[in-house]
């Protein structure tokens, strides 16, 4: 006790030495809070990087380890087996599933961009009765769970819905195992987001430009596609990227609206699940297929990250 009281007399140098490196650091941090914030910032950044990226690393570890050696894995692969990225295509035609996913994604994106461009123009630039009601209605539809659409859509696309026109009753065409039962639900599901993004972008184009185009000789639609859409290219790109990613990632209809065969336009959902449930469980192939399946969207995110950020802002927050 006396020691402590005399310690004050000895000066702060001594006290600092006693506290050791951590104590010194704390002391400095208190004197200079910016330092503490910087350290916290770096710790948090590293923490988030590790937690978001570790699962991908784990996929790589599993993929590179020969399947028979996969048990009690540590942080490093046991062995190095890059042939897995060839074997995975031999076991399941994963490239065909990816091709299907691309076709579904691109077709849906084209449909959504076209319809959302027209609707975005209407909501962003025209004044007419019923506007806010329609916008709310479109928003409300996106609140319903896909499950609430499942049964009737399944019936509709398997040809079990009778459509009566006057005295003639025809059953809906059997489109199961074609792209249609997925493309149309995807389009309806992801249309609202694109409408809201494009409404915001189209609404920001000055009226003068549209007027100028019309006086120069375009029709109203001509002004939309020659002037407003090209000028909103960033918004259109955003809506397109988000729609494509959403379709590529979708599970519900992708899983339920086909028989799981690549020849029936089943997307990667079925491809990934196809590895399971045979005579063995090829963990390494599953991991490899997952890596290959993530690559397209990962590349898209790297290229288009700015667009994605601005699009989510515009689409989700402006309501």
């Amino acid at each position, binding site marked *: 006790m006396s020691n402590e009281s005399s310690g004050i007399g000895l000066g702060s140098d001594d006290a600092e030495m006693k506290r050791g490196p951590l104590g010194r650091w704390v002391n400095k941090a208190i004197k200079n809070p910016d330092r503490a914030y910087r350290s916290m910032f770096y710790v948090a950044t590293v923490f988030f990087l590790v937690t978001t990226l570790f699962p991908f690393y784990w996929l790589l570890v599993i993929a590179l380890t020969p399947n028979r050696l996969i048990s009690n894995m540590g942080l490093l692969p046991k062995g190095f087996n890059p042939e897995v990225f060839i074997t995975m295509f031999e076991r399941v035609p994963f490239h065909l599933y990816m091709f299907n996913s691309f076709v579904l994604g691109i077709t849906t994106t084209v449909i959504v961009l076209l319809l959302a461009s027209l609707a975005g123009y209407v909501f962003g630039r025209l004044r007419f009765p019923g506007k806010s009601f329609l916008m709310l209605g479109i928003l409300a539809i996106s609140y319903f769970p896909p499950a609430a659409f499942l049964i009737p859509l399944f019936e509709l696309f398997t040809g079990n819905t009778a459509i009566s026109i006057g005295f003639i009753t025809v059953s809906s065409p059997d489109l199961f195992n074609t792209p249609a039962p997925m493309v149309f639900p995807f389009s309806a599901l992801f249309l609202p987001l694109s409408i809201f993004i494009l409404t915001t972008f189209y609404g920001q184009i000055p009226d*003068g430009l549209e007027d*100028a185009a*019309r006086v120069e000789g375009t029709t109203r639609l001509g002004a939309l596609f020659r002037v407003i859409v090209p*000028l909103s290219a960033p918004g259109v790109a955003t809506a397109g990227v988000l729609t494509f990613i959403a379709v590529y990632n979708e599970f519900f209809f992708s899983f339920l609206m086909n028989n799981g065969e690549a020849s029936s336009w089943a997307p990667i959902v079925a491809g990934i699940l196809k590895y399971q449930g045979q005579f063995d469980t090829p963990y390494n192939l599953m991991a490899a297929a997952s890596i290959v399946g993530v690559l397209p969207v990962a590349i898209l995110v790297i290229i288009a990250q700015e667009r994605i950020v601005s699009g989510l802002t515009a689409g989700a927050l402006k309501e």
Partner: protein
Amino acid sequence: MGDVKLEHVSKHYDDVTAVDDMNLDINDGEFICLVGPSGCGKSTTMEMIAGLTIPSEGKVFIGDREVTNLPPKDRGVAMVFQNIALFPHMDVYDNISFGLRLRNYDKEEIERRVNRAADVVQLEGMLERMPDEMSGGQRQRVAIARAIVRNPGVFLMDEPLANLDAKLRVHMRTELQRLHKELDTTIIYVTHDQAEAMTMSDRIAVIDSGQLQQIDPPLVCYNEPANLFVAGFIGSPSMNFLDGEVTEDGFVSQNIDVEFDPANLGVEVGRDVTLGIRPEDVYLIEDEHLVTNPSHEIDAMTDVLEPMGDEIFVYLKLEEDAETHLDEDAVATNDQLLMSVAPDTDIEEDKDVSVLLDRSKVHLFDTETGKAISHGIESGIQASEPTGTEAESDD
């Protein structure tokens, strides 16, 4: 080809009437300014001529065709916009040739016309630039070139100079007049700046609250305004207004009386009238020799002086404790008078002075309806009745 006619045209938005029963008759080759304060309906009128807005009632004619419900592309008009409205994703050449390309002109024809239009507005050598690489004045020239390249029957200009700086604006005014002389096409020009309208146009259409107030050549609007609104709107600074009454001896108000014989002007005694006098028609007593038809002396006190270089504006207080209103609103103030004198006049603030009015330049208006009764009160040019809509068509 280029005459434009509006017949009883109105435009209502929900419960707002933007344009109210507008009649306009514009001759081929004429330079007409639609002028009025913001929100008066002049831009809506122009949009209805362009086809960007469809009238709620009435008919629009261009040339001998009725175009009321035609889309803009089929009207043979070209337009220059206030915000210039160049397509930012196209270079100058593509901007100018936009309308020609839409009409499928062949390549050489487009090139010939674009080059000639660029020549007229002095844009040679800039055809490959993008709009954001150009100055405001250059962009405005591109917009004009885009408009003239199609040889439209009618040119519509919606405050095309409003976004330019003051110096460039004056320069572009002259250019537009030169252009009009060269092209000889009808130009309908919307502006809120009466000075712009005065300097450029063949006739001015003054619009307020959606209604046409007067359409006449600039000097007629200036010298013989049809009503209080036109009198106050045209001319800067604004005309002085004094509220008063007609008596046997002439005009009587709080501070100023101007004698005339009411019988000569055909006004009944006892009517409430507003007297209008422009600042340049108020004189110091020393300058009485300049006035052919002076009123009697008026005692006043100088308040604020505004030397403008070529003249001095003098705010006169007619009462001891009058407050000076420096705004330009056309309201009768009664206790204040604005006078303009020559720059070499020996005058100081806060001094007693005597002034007089040029009676041949005094305007009388009916206070209630605002309609002009007389311009000048001695020989008395009686105001034509009714003014504006039907009574014009002079040149």
